[in-house]
């Protein structure tokens, strides 16, 4: 399983993705690879192709609630005209290049302050980060239990 947190920590709440990655790395969870990047790029397709499950974590603008979590499918090929990709395009690239279709999810954490050049999260975003991390840990635990049950 791979978790990719991405965003620019120098732009306030855009650092939510990397902040979650760092928090998860600090926990040293077995069986979970963690990557941190500024943005999604083409070679993430290769990394994703080697996994059975991938979770993309990004800041989200204008969403309801502290965070959202949803399964996604390959798509949005038209977006691959940029240095920066969306998760669906990474999956499509992964499928097209390597014939791999891992299960994939997006964890979007609500952020509010993106305009200023500053490090650190807003208070509301930091609270959302904590809520998203708690959710993710619970989700990972359930996923582990399901996997163990399937192998039993």
């Amino acid at each position: 399983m791979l978790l990719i947190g991405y965003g620019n920590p120098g732009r306030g709440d855009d650092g939510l993705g990397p902040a979650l990655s760092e928090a998860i790395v600090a926990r040293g969870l077995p069986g979970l690879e963690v990557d941190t990047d500024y943005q999604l790029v083409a070679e993430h397709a290769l990394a994703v192709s080697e996994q059975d499950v991938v979770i993309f974590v990004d800041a989200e603008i204008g969403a309801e609630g502290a965070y959202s979590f949803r399964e996604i499918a390959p798509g949005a090929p038209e977006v691959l005209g940029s240095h920066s990709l969306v998760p669906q395009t990474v999956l499509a690239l992964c499928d097209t290049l390597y014939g791999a279709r891992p299960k994939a999810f997006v964890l979007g954490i609500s952020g509010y302050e993106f305009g200023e050049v500053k490090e650190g999260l807003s208070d509301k975003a930091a609270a959302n980060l904590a809520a998203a991390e708690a959710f993710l840990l619970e989700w990972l635990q359930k996923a582990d239990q399901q996997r163990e049950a399937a192998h039993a």
Partner: protein
Amino acid sequence: MTEPRLIEISPVTRVEGHGKVTIHLNAENEVDEARLHIVEFRGFERFIRGRLMWEVPVIVQRLCGICPVSHHLAAAKAMDMIAGVDQLTPTAEKMRRLMHYGQVMQSHVLHFFHLAAPDLLFGFGAPAEKRNIFEVIKENPELGKRAVLMRKYGQEIIEATAGKKVHGTGAIPGGINRNLPIERRDHFLASVDQMIEWSLDAVKLARNYTLEHEDLVAEFGSFPSNYMSLVRESDGALDLYHGNLRALSSTGDMIFDQVPYTKYHELIVEDVRSWSYMKFPFIKTLGPDAGWYRVGPLARMNTAAFIDTPLADAALKDLKAVTCGTPNNSTLANHWARMIEVLHCVEKIRELLNDPDLQGTDLIAKGDRREEGIGVIEAPRGNLIHHYKVDEHDQVTYCNLIVSTTHNNEGMNRAVKDVAVKHLSGKEQITEGMLNHVEVAIRAYDPCLSCATHALGQMPLQVELFNADGALVDSLTQCV
């Protein structure tokens, strides 16, 4: 001692990574004016004030998610000067060069294969749904896989030399904080010949496109201009990491040569215009009308006397033969030049990997401290200037950055207008394919428009078309 301060500017202007093209038509539907607006990240010059000098090479990487290493190294070179170090240890310089070649390689590969290839393979006016890398992969799946692996190779070089892909801490004032362990060297050596072979194929691909579309390349967004880059101090060879400044005219006349980059401000004036946040640099002796210039891969091919790696040098001679040795003014030839640089970088990487200095332990040099530092590097998109002053507490009091996209501002605007006039003027209906022609011209420069946030992929280039009455008649949004 004064406490470190964080200075924040609010509101911060010039921070978005969005680019916008506006095209104004007259009553006859002829293009009256066409402009590229890029809101560059100039706020950083104020933001950095008050930070400690040793922090700067790490902080400035946050200017850009595409070429953070270039900012890291340019700032580190400036801090070397402040640390009083004029000559790095061999290990430090070679580790930094390795980092830089990895960066230029991966950046160019991504641009050529993923961003430019769909335009080049399917035509500028092809349907939008056709112009993406997935269609390229359908025609040539091997190309897509190579592009990913080549870029991954460059990214891994960055990680090995800077510590991590993003916000690496490799370069520090006066040197580097790590060497390259033998096992990492062997990892890279194992596939470097494969990278060279693929780079040769990429040069061939770009070369053949340029020559097979000679008429298109000659007229598309092309015009004479001056060119500027660093060249190697001793002999004028291409040098992406260090050297002196050289500028040539469109016909190859030397404007200035082997000028230390610490004197850049004596050579270049940064002009401002009312309609753009971005400055318009020009060569002081020539004035604003005649003194504008271009930087980047093609500019470097034009200014370099030769390349000191054999395969890339042969490729350079091939490119120069097209214009009988005089500067090549064809904007689209940037793609060919870019691939020659990929080949050069990989040749340099192989050369460095075989150099035992990379395993040296003498990492930092020392000198007599100064209060001003200027670092210049040839970033993937062209010349990049970082200029700082610090106070007695090592806090930054002054910062001036001239990034590649700013150097190319006038050139990109001219390319936009040239293409708009040729492909949109007089047309009753403006199609998406026509507007894409404008984007192709911009894309040839590979401008960096994305120095801001990327939450959920919001980084569009917007094209707006206005009629003679000033009313918006068409618009298109596309990521670049």
